[in-house]
Structure formats: structure tokens, C-alpha cells
């Protein structure tokens, strides 16, 4: 602690108990208190800090806004939390090259707002985009409703500056789409802070679509809603977003946001097509017809920007709205092939019933990325969270057995590292370990994440069901 203050100055280091408490949690359910928190203001600060930690063999845990949903920013093995709150500037908006260069602490939405006057935007739009940072997006390879058609974070990052755990500063990639040699930018995106600290990011900017059509469709049950998703895709339509919500979620949203979703629907789809104006109404009409063919009781097309905003506000505010239903929720992020939606959703429901917990579903249906929100009440005792986790594990096991993944965008973190053997064989994990050892041979970057740890994972001894 004293060494850190001497190195960086008092105003960049937090060590008081009450300050540290603010950094012991993120958007998920696990907590741990850091030994110290550092707020660097430059790459040089980050490099100096890394050298210090390397010398003293102290773990380093990067942190953006702390909205992560897998405990990624939690210092489970102690150490220094590095908050990027003071490295939040846009360094360059390069319109001719369709790139922006930003610091990692920049809030996602601030980037799209800043480049909108140039007719551009940054595609990845996590529902947390008003709070989460670009550094967090890079670390988690975040998605969002509109990544269905236009790709997730990794498809929109061309360059990074990183600091390795020994303090080495390295620039990888740049404004061009690719560099020679191995794609280290691609390897780093999605590495959850375990390979290094990202201190600068070069992202692609995309021309804003000329226009959009947003459709809300209400169905008697989730089955019809699921089948509609498959039918739309089978018809050759590729919407920019297909989001689904069940009745419990709709009720919570309506109570808090008043998005205008019908309360009696068993399942709701929120669909969007965007692009050149020509052809949008054609696509919208085809979508409407498919919805009606699948027994939609209501199909509403947003009449303008205001109504579109309202429909989306409901979706983006859905997690927060869970507070209306329950003091706590545990959200899972499994992915399945789209065609398996109806049976897996039934299984999700059964898992809730079996563990005596309510489950709401709000998710990216177009790419088969589930988000079951398992509601529990920690005031009733530790058993509640245990049951929520047990239900979550059943759901993830089913996702893997269906040929899917335990996480589509929230990351493994410390929440699912013990579940990695569900999806991967020892040889698969060994291959990943080689990447880890190349970047961080001393294992100081964000330890206790992604890879199963013997101490915490002893009780989970499952064989891989991976295909």
C-alpha cells in the first residue's frame, strides 16, 4: 500500500476500508474485497503499477464500470483492482478511416453519441451501454441486441494498446483491418482481463442505417414466439435484432418502464430491420405476416422514433426491472442452436419449478443466446442463492448438451470457471492455457477466472459432454 502511494501518488490509490467496499462486487452475485484500488490516469501509470505488482507478485484485476455479469472484476484471490474510471477520453474520431481511438474507461454509449454527428455509430450495444465501458466490452467480447446482424465486439476492434503483467507496453493492430502474424488482437478480445490490461482501443465506426422498422409481436405462448424466430430466419430475412421476453419479464418491465407491452401475452418478440429505406417496408410486411401465421395476437409497428425508443427502453431496462419482482436475481447466459429454443425454454421452466424459484426470460433470441433470470431472495438465507445456482447449472448443462455454450456474451469469470469442463475437454483447456502462459507467464493477471481452480472447483467433477 505504501509502495503504491509512493509510486503513483496519494490521489491515485485507495486503501481505506470504506473505499474498498465499493469495489468488492459487480453485476453478478459473488464478492471479494481488494487489497487496494488504483485509479491510473495514463498508460505510464498502468505500466508502473504492473511492474510494481510483478516485482511483488501481487495479482492485478482490471475493472471498468463493474456491470459485468460473471464476477470478472472481482479480486477473488486478492490483489490490486485497477479502475479505468480516469482513463475515459475519446482520443481521436477518424472519419475518413471510419475509426475511433478511445481510452478503456469510456462509456459505450458516449462513443456512439459522440460520433453520431458524423452519421456514424459503434455497433455493439449491450443493454448496459449507458454504464459499461469499452475496456469491459473488449474484455468480455460483449454483444447486444443489434449484434445479431452486425457482429459482436471482436468484429469491431482493429487495434489495442495493452500492458502485460510485467509492465511491457505493446501496440497490436491499428487502423487497418489486419496485421501480419498471429491475430493477437483477436486473441485478446474476450480474454476477461486475464491476458493483460487494455489501455487504448481502436474501433470500427459504422455508417448509421438510413432508417429502421421496429415491430413488437405478442404470442399466446413462448412456443409460438420461438417458432416465429426460426420461421423468419428460414424465410431468408436477417433482422438486425430479434429479442424475446416471457410473461413474467413483461410484467416487471411494464411495472417499471411502461413500454406498452401487452400483459396477457405468453411471449413477446421485439424485432428490428434496418438499412436503406427501400425494402424496409417489404421486410416488415413479411415479418408481420410470419408473426400472424404463428398466431400473434397483436403485431405493433412503431410509428416513429418515439415509440421505437419506448419499445427498446422496455427491453434495455428489463434486468433493472427485476427489482419489482424480487430483491435478487441470478442471470445465466447459455447459448443454443436457434432450432432448440422451444424445448430448452421448457427445460428452463422446469428447472425453476424443481428448485422452487421463479424464472423470467429476456434474451437475444435471434442468436439463441438465453438470459434466464433466476429470481431469489438472499434475505431468506444462503440456501436461496445455492438453489438459484443449482437451477442455473442445470440450464447450462442442457445448453451444452444441445450443442451450445455456457456463455454467449457475459463471460466465464469466477462464476462459471468451474463449469468449463462441461463444455471443454482437458486438451481444449490446455490449448487455451498456452495462450495464457504466453501473455502472462507468472499468472498475475486476474487469477481465478476462466480456468477451473482446484481449490474452488473441487465439488464440480463433471466429464465433458462436449461434442
Amino acid at each position, binding site marked *: 500500500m505504501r509502495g503504491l502511494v509512493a509510486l503513483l501518488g496519494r490521489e491515485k490509490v485507495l486503501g481505506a476500508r470504506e473505499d474498498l467496499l465499493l469495489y468488492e462486487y459487480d453485476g453478478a452475485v459473488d464478492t471479494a474485497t481488494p487489497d487496494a484500488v488504483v485509479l491510473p490516469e495514463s498508460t505510464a501509470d498502468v505500466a508502473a503499477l504492473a511492474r510494481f505488482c510483478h516485482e511483488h507478485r501481487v495479482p492485478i484485476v482490471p475493472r471498468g464500470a463493474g456491470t459485468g455479469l460473471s464476477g470478472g472484476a472481482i479480486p477473488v484471490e486478492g490483489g490490486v483492482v485497477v479502475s479505468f474510471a480516469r482513463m475515459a477520453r475519446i482520443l481521436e474520431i477518424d472519419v*475518413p*478511416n*471510419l*475509426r475511433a481511438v478511445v481510452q478503456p474507461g469510456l462509456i459505450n454509449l458516449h462513443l456512439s453519441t459522440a460520433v453520431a454527428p458524423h452519421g456514424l455509430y459503434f455497433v455493439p450495444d449491450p443493454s448496459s451501454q449507458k454504464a459499461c465501458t469499452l475496456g469491459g466490452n473488449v474484455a*468480455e*467480447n460483449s454483444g447486444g441486441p443489434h*449484434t445479431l446482424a452486425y457482429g459482436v465486439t*471482436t*468484429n469491431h476492434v482493429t487495434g489495442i494498446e495493452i500492458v502485460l503483467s510485467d509492465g511491457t507496453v*505493446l501496440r*497490436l493492430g491499428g*487502423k*487497418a*483491418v*489486419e496485421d*501480419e*502474424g*498471429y*491475430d*493477437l488482437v*483477436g*486473441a485478446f478480445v*474476450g480474454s476477461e482481463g486475464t491476458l493483460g490490461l487494455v489501455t487504448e482501443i481502436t474501433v470500427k465506426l459504422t*455508417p448509421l*442505417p438510413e432508417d429502421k422498422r421496429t415491430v413488437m409481436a405478442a404470442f399466446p405462448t413462448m412456443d409460438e414466439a420461438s417458432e416465429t424466430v426460426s420461421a423468419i*430466419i*428460414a424465410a*431468408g430475412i*436477417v433482422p438486425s435484432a430479434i429479442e424475446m421476453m416471457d410473461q413474467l419479464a413483461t410484467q416487471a418491465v411494464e411495472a417499471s418502464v411502461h413500454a406498452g407491452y401487452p400483459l396477457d401475452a405468453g411471449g413477446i418478440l421485439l424485432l428490428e430491420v434496418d*438499412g*436503406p429505406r*427501400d*425494402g424496409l417496408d*417489404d*421486410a416488415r410486411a413479411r415479418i408481420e405476416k410470419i408473426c400472424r401465421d404463428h398466431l400473434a395476437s397483436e403485431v405493433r409497428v412503431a410509428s416513429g422514433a418515439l415509440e421505437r425508443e419506448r419499445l427498446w427502453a422496455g427491453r434495455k431496462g428489463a434486468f433493472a426491472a427485476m427489482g419489482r419482482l424480487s430483491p435478487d436475481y441470478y442471470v445465466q447466459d447459455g*447459448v443454443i*442452436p*436457434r*432450432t432448440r429454443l422451444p424445448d430448452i425454454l421448457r427445460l428452463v421452466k422446469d428447472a425453476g419449478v424443481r428448485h422452487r424459484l421463479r424464472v423470467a426470460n429476456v434474451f437475444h433470441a435471434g*442468436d*439463441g*443466446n438465453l438470459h434466464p433470470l433466476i429470481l431469489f431472495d438472499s434475505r431468506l438465507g444462503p440456501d436461496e442463492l445455492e438453489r438459484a445456482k443449482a437451477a442455473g447449472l442445470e440450464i447450462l448443462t442442457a445448453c451444452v448438451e444441445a*450443442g*451450445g*455454450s*455456457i456463455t*454467449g*456474451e*457475459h463471460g*466465464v469469470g469466477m462464476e*462459471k470457471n468451474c463449469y*468449463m469442463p462441461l463444455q*471443454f475437454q482437458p486438451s481444449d483447456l*490446455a*490449448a*487455451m492455457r*498456452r*495462450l*495464457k502462459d*504466453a501473455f502472462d507467464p507468472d499468472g498475475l493477471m486476474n487469477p481465478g477466472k476462466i480456468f477451473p481452480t482446484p481449490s474452488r472447483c473441487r465439488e464440480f467433477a463433471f466429464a465433458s459432454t462436449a461434442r
Partner: protein
Amino acid sequence: MSATVTRAIPADAAECARVLADAARDRRTVRIRGSGTKSYIGDIAPTDIEIGTSRLAGVIDHEPADLTVTVGAGMRVADVAAVLARAGQFLPLDPPHADEATIGGVIAANSNGVWRARYGAVRDLLIGTRIALADGTVARAGGRVVKNVAGYDLDKVLVGSFGTLGVIVEATFKVLPVPAASDGLVARFVRSADAFAAADAVIRGASRVEACVVERSEGPAWRLAVQARGSAPTVKRAVDDARREVAARQGKSNELGDELGQMRELPARAIDGALVRASLPLAASPAFAETAARLESLAALVADAASGVVRVHLLGDDEAVIRDAEALLLAARVVGGSGRIERRAEQLRSRLSTWPTRPNGDFLMRRIKDSFDPAGILEPGRSAFA
């Protein structure tokens, strides 16, 4: 190095891994061969063993409604396309050597065509692989679903790895439904600046075109080829817009024939002289092309306006070709891009190395290589960082 090459054509991933493990134990070097279409890339020398992937072929899984396909790495891209076409779908990759290239080779060489404007590159479409490794194990990276962040994205490291880390035996890609309509145009310009300005307007426009490529081959004229696919109204709009951008810059539009195919196949034709491939920030392409146009040995230039990947074919006197190639690689670096000598005639091999400079992060690349291939047997001469 022995004089005779041992050929192995493994029937499955496990057999392939065994061949590799034996080779590693005996320190025998290995080359991996799909159809051999890109054997010109790299500073390659003969190896002790050649592993052919032809038996690692065939469709392993294709559920049309999931918009994914899993195939053996030895399968030809053209054959994958034929299978998908029967389901009304396509793999949105159009690499050069279109008839022969195999899936594994396209991944290993990061081989892209002109469609990346719309659909992205190999790295954007590949969602999973299985690889046979030099320690005799088989590992899986990624998965079979379109979204997946469980663990590291090893697929990215394999794209463009030229077989230096292991043998790709299987791959899963995102696929798309075949669009209903297709149209395009090809335009001629006197000045390169006009051709690039029109191209730039097209890629920034409301329509998302499938390809937008500027070319110069024989004669002083510059050509721009634009293709759009999608629903009929969007295609009409895209082509109308492109025609207007062309006319605004004194270009002459004509109907699109097979020009895009010819442009894409430049690497296949560039047997003599040298072919420089540069990846540039988008806005740097016009000046780079101008520089290339002034070179004594310029034979052809193909610039993908949407990605900033530019290929320049140089022909003529060896000394001029070497001098011009080096000038282009330097020009690419100066503007913040990178480049390589993708292909060169046999007599230039010793004088033009594929990767004359090392990329940033070369020491990390070396560590990765050493951990996957500690004996250093895999694809010698095909590491950009060596």
C-alpha cells in the same frame, strides 16, 4: 533433412495428431497441404513430411435453420458451396483460387475475396475449429453456435497461422440464406482519385454493397466494380446510388460481368514477378495506389475499398520488381498499415522474403508458437515473426 518426402493422408483427427506426435518425437519437419493453391506464400523449404487433408473432407453437420455448417477442413470451398446451395444458403466467403481452395487452407492463410465488404473476413465467419496438435492431442476451439465467449477465442489465432500451430481438421462457419436479387456495375475512370472517391461514397452510403473494388490493369484507366445482393428493392437502390456516384465523378458505368471474379483471382494469375499485399487504413488506399501507379514495374492493382486490402502485381526486370516491392512495403508501413510479399517468381525467392519486417508483438507470437510446437516442426518458413 532427408531427400524423400513422406506423405501422410490421415483419415481422421486422431490419426493426424499421431502423425504429428511421431514427427515431433523424431524432429521431422511437416508441411500441411490442402489443394496446395497457396504454397507460394512464405519462405518455405522442403520438409520431411507432407500431411494431406484430402480425407478430412465432407459435411459433418448442417442444420439449415441454425445457419451454421460444420465441415472437414480438407473439403473444397466450392464443394461446401454446392452443398449449401441445395438448401438455399451460401458460405459468405469468396477466396481466390475459388475452384480448388480448401476450407483448412482458407483459414490457415486467412484467404479472403471481395465479399468482406458486406460479410466480413474469415475471422468474422469462423465460429469453431478442431485442431490436431504436435503433442498428439486434438483440441477444440470455439463451438457450433453463433455466439460463444467461453474461454479464449483460439480460432482467431488459427486464422492466418499457416499451419504453424497445428493441423485444422474441422471448422464451423456461419452461413446465410441466398439473397433474392443481385446486380452490379463496372465503371471506368481516367483518374484514380475519381475511382477511389466514388468507391468511398459507395461504402459510406445507405446501401450495404457486397463488393466494392478498384482495379487498374492494362492501360492507364481505372475500373470500379460494385456488386449488391439482397431483396430486389435494396439491390436496385444500391446500384442506382452507385451509378450516381460514378456519374458525379466523370465515370462511365456498364453492366457488371465477371470483373469481380477476375479481380479476386489476381493472386492466382501473378505467377511471374512479385505480388505485394498490403493492409491499409481505409483512407490511405488512394495515395498508395497513386504511388503504385508511378512504379516502373506495375502490372496490376486491385484495391478492396471496403477493407483497405490492396494487392499490387509487379512485373519486369528483377531489379525493378525488387526495388518497387520494397518501396510499396515501406509505403504501407509509413501510413500505419502492413504488408507482405504474397507471391514471387522462383528466381526472386532468395532476394524477396515474404515478411521482411517483424510485426508488433512478435515475441508473444514466438512464445505461442513454441508452446504449441516446441520441436519447431510445423511449417518452417511460414511464421511472420521468425
